[in-house]
Each structure stands twice: as structure tokens, then as C-alpha cells.
């Protein structure tokens, strides 16, 4: 067996020698990428990991109500809360009130069962005065304490890991039986918003492809002097602030905007029938298509530039009309560019935030606006994290599907 191993002149195995020889080079290369690696880890991996972990862990309740948590652990699900449970609750409420953590405990339960916030805060104020038998005295304080759903929510919140934020993100509500159930239609928010986000992103991607394809083709086939001018026009938006571009659309398209005023002035539409192109889905689509167009054009252009004109000429000489040549010879060769541009635009669109926030109105906002709302206004970071994780999952799933259908190495970004 050892005879088959290749060896260097002095008898060391070739593979080991090779590894040692390239180890130095590899180590040096590692030092070169270390700053970037550190940067990525610190600014990207760690915060995202933090955020994702928040979507399944929220210890606002479990950390501040230790005795009740212990009772939940000792008694399996379905056990009626007994005297010991109420005693633990009373002790924990007293403690939490003293340590001023009762607010976060209340908020945590309120996430799962809305309207329970004041139940906790007022109980916190009165807890010190509670006396045995605790079951009666607690329920006497507020009959809601006897309701199974409150206990189900507390049991749910006492676990180390929780799915309640994902359940909420999927429009499922905690029921009295302690399980999550589909919320009634009028309470469904997020799934609809996810659907709208994906649909709008798909529309934007499609429009970008429709508008960008001819431009990219023109860029790739014009002589150098003209194509560089066109390229500057394509890149010009990149050099203008996103806010400026978005607000220009508002100036242009709102009901009292330039477009509508002109059309009314020319008598093409009447004053009452002004087009509603802003603060709705149309506004979001128009502004986002404009902003994301370069991300479609550039990958398409870089692919089209490498397609020699002789392919289309060959097809024509073989008897194909220009349409057949375009459809059967040209387009298939631009698939890597279509894929790259499409994925890029779609992923950017799915996470788009500022533009829909400014021009989307009520019907044109996306899931990212809802995430931002939970981050900044409602401060329910766990729900924001769950929504973001689902968005991330959707994008990754899309990426995976693309890989299966087209192949990632078929993608050409530049």
C-alpha cells in the first residue's frame, strides 16, 4: 500500500509536503483577509445572530418570575393552577414590583394576550397586601387571574425558548387551551403583508426586467463613445440621494403634482378624476422600479457584452428571422444576467424600507415597514426579529430554488 503513495525526493509523502509548502502562503493570505473577516463578524454575523436569537428567546417573564417558572416546570401542562401556583404568583408579583420589572413582565404577557398589561401592573401595586389563601385573594383582586388563557400565556412565557413570536408573525393567536390558533380574518396582518411584499417585489422585478433588457442590450451594442454616455445616464441615479429621488417622484406624481396638473391643464382628465399614483401600491411600484432599475441593467449588460455578434449573425444566416434569433439564440444566452439581475432586484425589493414608507401610503407599505414599526415604535423586538427571520428565510428559500432551477454558478453579477 505504502508503495502507491507519491513521495518527494527525500521520502516524505508528497501530499504532506505540498500542504506544508502552501501553508505559509495560506497563513499570509489569512492575515490579509483578517480585517475584513473581523469587520464582517462584528458588524454582520454577531448582530444578526443576536437579532435572530431574540426571536425565540425572550426572558422578560421567565427571568423575573422565578417561583412561578419553577411551579410550571414541576407541573405538566393542563394542571389546574392550585394554591401553590397562586402563592408563587403572589410572591413573584411582589418581587417584580419591588424590583420595578413588573412592566416588562406585563409587556411580555400582553404580547400573547392583549389587554393584560394593566392586569399585571395593578396586581404589582397590590401584591404586597395579598394574604393566604392566595388563590381566593388573587382572583378577588381581579377575576381575570382565574382565566385559563392568562395562565396559558404565563406558562408559555416561562419557557426558555418560545415560538410565540413566530406564531404572532404568522397571525396565530394563543387560545384559552394554550395552543396557537389561526386568528380571525380581520386580525390577520402579517401574512397578508408578506404576500403583498412578495407580490410587489415580483412586479417590480418584472418591470425592471422589461425596462432594463432593451437598455442593457443598447448599452452592449452601441459603439463605445455612445454607450459610455448611456452608462452615465444609467448610473446617474446612484449618485443622487435616495430621498431626493423618492421625493421627486412625490412631487411628480401626487394628486396635486406635476403630472396630474399637466393632464388636467391639458383637459385630458377632469379635476375630479386625478390619477392616484402616490401613497398607494402604484407609487411604491413606480418609485421602486426606478430606484432598482440599475441593479437589473448592470448584470444584464455585463452578460450581454460578452455575447459575440457572430452568434446572432450565424442564426440569421441559418435562416432565422430576427425575432426567432432573439428568442432562441439571444435570450437563452442572457439567462445568467436575467437570473442575477432578477435575484438582486427581488432581494433588494423584498427588504425595501424607505421608499415604501414615504410613498406607499396605507396599501403600498411592505413587511420591512412593519418590522421597523416594531423596532422603533412598539418596541416588540422579538416580533420584529421573528418577522425579519421569516423574510430572511423566504429569501434564502428563493435562492435555493434558483440554484436548483438555474444554478448559482450560472449567475453573473459583473
Amino acid at each position: 500500500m505504502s508503495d502507491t503513495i507519491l513521495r518527494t525526493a527525500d521520502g516524505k509523502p508528497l501530499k504532506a509536503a505540498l500542504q506544508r509548502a502552501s501553508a505559509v502562503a495560506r497563513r499570509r493570505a489569512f492575515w490579509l483577509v483578517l480585517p475584513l473577516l473581523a469587520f464582517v463578524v462584528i458588524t454582520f454575523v454577531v448582530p444578526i445572530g443576536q437579532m435572530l436569537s431574540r426571536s425565540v428567546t425572550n426572558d422578560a417573564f421567565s427571568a423575573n418570575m422565578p417561583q412561578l417558572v419553577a411551579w410550571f416546570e414541576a407541573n405538566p401542562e393542563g394542571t389546574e393552577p392550585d394554591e401553590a401556583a397562586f402563592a408563587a404568583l403572589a410572591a413573584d408579583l411582589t418581587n417584580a414590583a419591588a424590583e420595578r420589572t413588573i412592566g416588562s413582565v406585563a409587556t411580555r404577557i400582553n404580547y400573547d394576550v392583549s389587554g393584560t398589561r394593566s392586569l399585571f401592573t395593578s396586581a404589582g401595586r397590590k401584591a404586597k397586601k395579598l394574604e393566604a389563601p392566595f388563590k381566593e385573594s388573587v382572583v378577588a383582586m381581579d377575576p381575570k387571574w382565574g382565566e385559563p388563557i392568562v395562565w396559558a400565556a404565563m406558562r408559555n412565557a416561562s419557557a426558555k425558548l418560545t415560538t410565540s413570536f413566530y406564531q404572532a408573525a404568522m397571525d396565530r393567536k394563543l387560545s384559552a387551551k394554550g395552543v396557537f390558533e389561526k386568528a380571525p380574518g380581520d386580525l390577520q396582518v402579517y401574512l397578508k403583508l408578506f404576500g403583498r411584499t412578495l407580490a410587489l417585489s415580483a412586479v417590480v422585478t418584472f418591470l425592471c426586467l422589461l425596462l432594463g433588457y432593451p437598455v442593457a442590450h443598447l448599452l452592449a451594442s452601441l459603439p463605445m463613445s455612445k454607450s459610455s454616455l448611456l452608462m452615465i445616464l444609467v448610473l446617474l441615479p446612484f449618485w443622487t440621494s435616495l430621498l431626493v429621488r423618492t421625493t421627486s417622484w412625490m412631487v411628480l406624481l401626487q394628486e396635486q403634482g406635476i403630472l396630474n396638473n399637466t393632464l388636467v391643464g391639458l383637459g385630458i382628465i377632469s379635476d375630479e378624476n386625478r390619477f392616484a399614483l402616490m401613497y398607494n401600491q402604484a407609487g411604491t411600484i413606480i418609485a421602486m422600479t426606478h430606484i432598482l432599475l440599475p441593479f437589473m441593467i448592470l448584470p444584464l449588460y455585463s452578460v450581454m457584452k460578452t455575447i459575440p455578434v457572430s452568434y446572432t449573425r450565424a442564426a440569421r444566416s441559418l435562416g432565422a428571422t430576427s425575432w426567432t434569433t432573439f428568442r432562441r439564440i439571444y435570450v437563452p444566452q442572457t439567462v445568467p444576467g436575467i437570473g442575477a439581475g432578477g435575484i438582486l432586484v427581488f432581494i433588494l425589493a423584498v427588504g425595501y424600507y424607505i421608499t415604501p414608507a414615504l410613498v406607499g401610503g396605507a396599501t403600498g407599505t411592505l413587511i420591512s415597514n412593519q418590522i421597523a414599526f416594531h423596532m422603533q415604535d412598539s418596541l416588540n423586538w422579538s416580533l420584529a426579529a421573528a418577522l425579519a427571520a421569516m423574510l430572511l428565510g423566504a429569501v434564502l428559500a428563493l435562492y435555493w430554488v434558483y440554484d436548483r432551477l438555474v444554478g448559482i454558478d450560472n449567475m453573473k453579477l459583473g
Partner: protein
Amino acid sequence: MAGSNTSDAFVVFDRVQKSYDGETLVVKDLNLSMPKGEFLTMLGPSGSGKTTCLMMLAGFETATHGEILLDGRPINNIPPHKRGIGMVFQNYALFPHMTIAENLSFPLEVRGMDKSVREEKIKRALDMVQMGQFGNRRPAQLSGGQQQRVALARALVFEPELVLMDEPLGALDKQLREHMQFEITRLAHDLGITVVYVTHDQTEALTMSDRVAVFNDGVIQQLAPPAELYEAPKNSFVAQFIGENNTLEGVVTEISNDKCVVKLDDGELIDARPVNVTKVGERTRVSIRPERVEMNKARLQPGAHTLKATVCEFIYMGDIFRTRLSVAGNDDFIIKTRNAPDAVRLQPGTEIEIGWLPQDCRALDA
């Protein structure tokens, strides 16, 4: 073969001019007429307008002036896909996203042929170029020579009467190139197709063609069968471009119908055949092929002119010896001698006498 009678001509260029930028003419006054079944090669240095001519014929460029006729019909207004011309490109232009069979199927599909007919024709075309077992491969999985064959098969599969080839063998190594030269001529002959072939390799042009059009600067310098081109070049560009050639410069001192006397720049007088010199006092370049120069006095015919020469360099090439001489002020005078048992290997510095027949010595334009 060299019928230039326009009535039975298949392809005709009639006073065709082409300019890309409106400032310079890339093709100047091109007149050419080809009978059916001819193998015509356009030969010329880079940038002389060969590809441009081919593109005008194929319909990818329009002539700025003049008319191109195909089978008697002007084609200026026929779009490329209706011309029915097969074309082989220099980089083969096989569609990378299709298999070999799909590549060949494409021209048949756009002509609306049935599947069974297509399969039959594809098989025949692939067998013709000995690529029968490669139908399921992609172009990227073939070697250069194999791709070349497929490109040829694709240009022929829809049975065009005219096939254009733009330097189709440019990327192949010497052996494969020679083999493919043979294959292409054989196929063209067997199928009876008319071929316009572009190359800047003169051996390729000479060995393959019925006629060769030598291009320079957008003008056909000479259009003739290979032997005539080599042995009777019409001007000094053709003499220089085709094969190896020695030139001596001088002035015409005497001229009659088929004979002239040229006074070389070092004062020596030689006899030559006037080709495109017309009057006494005109400057001329006298051209002699290296293999027509004789240095063995015994073999010189009576009346042959002799000149003194000094050997500068002796190059052993196996089958022949190539000797560089200094003759009448020209240090680049080459002679070739066969490696015969009695051949002398000349040492540099040796003084010898060389000679040739006056009819092998052509007085051309300066």
C-alpha cells in the same frame, strides 16, 4: 472554370464600394463574377476588406455603392435570413446553449421541416464530417477541430448553394489545418456547392481554390487560378504576397513586345519580360522566384544571364537548402536548391555566379 461571363455567373459584385465612416473606402470598386460550383478564395493582408466583402454578401453590411447579384437577382434588399447562404465563422459561432444536434437542427427547424426529416439530415451532415457520435455533446465539450467540423456541417445541413467561410481554419494547428483544407475542398467538390473562402494564408489559398482573388487596400490586385497567380503575378504586390520572391530594382533602358532590358541600380544590365512597364526610363522591380535561380553553370541554358553574387548565409532546411546572397546591392536575395547528393553547401563569403532564364524574370511596377 474562370468564366467571368456575367450571364451564367452565380455571384456577381458589380462596382461595389463600401465605407463604414463616410471618410475612407474600405472596398473600392470591386468587380467579381463567379460561376456556379466555383471555389473562390479571397486572400489578402489584414484589413484589406475581405471580411467586409463577405459580410456584404451575407447581408450583415450593405454596400455603399454598386450591386451584388446572387443567381441573377440583386440581393441588396433581401434580408440575411432569406438569402439561403451557409456561413462558417472564424470563431465557429456554435450556439453554446444547444447540443451539436440542436445546433444542426436549428436551420432545419426555422425552415419548418418535420422531425423525421430533420433527424435524417442531421445524421447525414454529421456523418459527412465524421462527427456522428457527438450529437449529444455541447460545443464546449469539443476540441477546436471538432467544433470546426460541426460548424461546417451546420453551414451545409440546409443544403445552401453558396457557402461563405471566413478564415475557418485560423485557430487550428498546422496538421489539422492541412487535413481540414483537404476535407473542405473534397466536400465542396462532392456537393457541387459554390464557396467563397477568406484566408490570409497563401498556401491555403493556393491549394484549395479554383481561383484566388488577391486583395490589397480594398482592391482586387489579381484574380486568377493559383498557378497563374504564382507564376505570372501581374504586379509587384502579388509577386511579393504569393510565395517567396526576389526583387532587384532598376530602370528600363530598352523595351520591345516581350523583352526588355533593365539597368539595375548598380549598373548591371539584365534581360526581363515586361509585365507592367511600358516605356523606357520607367523605374521597375524585377522579380525572380528563388527556385528559378540556378547556380550550377552546367545546368544553365545557353543565353541565360549570369550575375556575380556573394553568399551571406546558408540555411539547412532538410529537403532544401536556402541560401541568402548579396546580389546587385540586394542583401536579401534568396535561392533554393534541392538537397540532392551532389548539391554544394555554400560557405558564407564565397563568390559565385548565378543565372536564370529571361522569361522567369518579370519586370513589374516599382
